[in-house]
């Protein structure tokens, strides 16, 4: 079995109101010196295949077709 982690983040230049709110809340809690905060998503995915190359190709297809909206988001795939 292959375990993978997909990370989806907003592209540069795309406004992230939720990240901004978190940034403000961290300041409220007294964490000084916090720069920009950007919120993203993490998906931990198990694949039954043992073929790493195929798994990577499948995971990228999953990102393009569903996990990420490539109009506004980037993704990275890491296989552990």
């Amino acid at each position, binding site marked *: 079995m292959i375990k993978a982690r997909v990370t989806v983040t907003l592209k540069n230049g795309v406004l992230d*109101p939720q990240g901004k*709110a978190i940034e403000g809340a961290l300041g409220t809690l007294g964490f000084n010196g916090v720069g920009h905060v950007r919120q993203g998503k993490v998906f931990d995915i198990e694949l039954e295949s043992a073929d790493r190359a195929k798994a990577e190709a499948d995971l990228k297809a999953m990102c393009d077709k569903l*996990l990420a909206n490539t*109009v*506004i988001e980037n993704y990275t795939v890491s296989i552990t």
Partner: protein
Amino acid sequence: MKSAVILLPGLNRDRDMIAALTKIGGKAPVTVWQTDTEIPDVDLIVIPGGFSYGDYLRCGAIAARMPVMRAVAEKATKGVTVMGVCNGFQILLEAGLLPGALMRNASLKFVCREVKLEVANAGTRFTDRYAQGQLIRCPIAHHDGNYFADEATLARIEGEGQVAFRYAEGTNPNGSLNDIAGIVNGAGNVLGMMPHPENLIEDAHGGSDGRALFEAALGRAA
């Protein structure tokens, strides 16, 4: 004038939409469930608002991958009139039938109130019963209506007259780029909009500014 309303779990404005189409079109729309792979021959297909799949992953993301949306895409390619309101707009964007994306409102708040819309292009098959630049009343109710597109896309849709509705100057409720409230595709037969015209079609609603949109979209097929 035949119409169809697409049904998905979590949508909750379907009854309002069916009522509006029935009252204005004179005939109840057929309903098409998410797993259906074919849509009957109709003149107008509508995806109503709500919270399909609980807004999981991204608003409209999972709904856009359901079998019925392949059928909607086929009909759209053939030139059938398609309209998505609120969550329906989000679904059309996620399905790639319209350009851009809808993000969380800049205020982070759910906004539920009436707004003024400017008819930005009265030359579309959805807006040609309004006057260019006309201000109309329309209710909104959404958390993710903040329209975004990259610079090139934005320039293209502005240049091609694909912006159908804007929030009236100075009243942008959600942070949308260029105050965009509704857009059409390049061919002009697919409309997506965040506001709810189906909720302002008769005196009992307190006004009927939304009626002309349905009359245009339905009347076209007569």
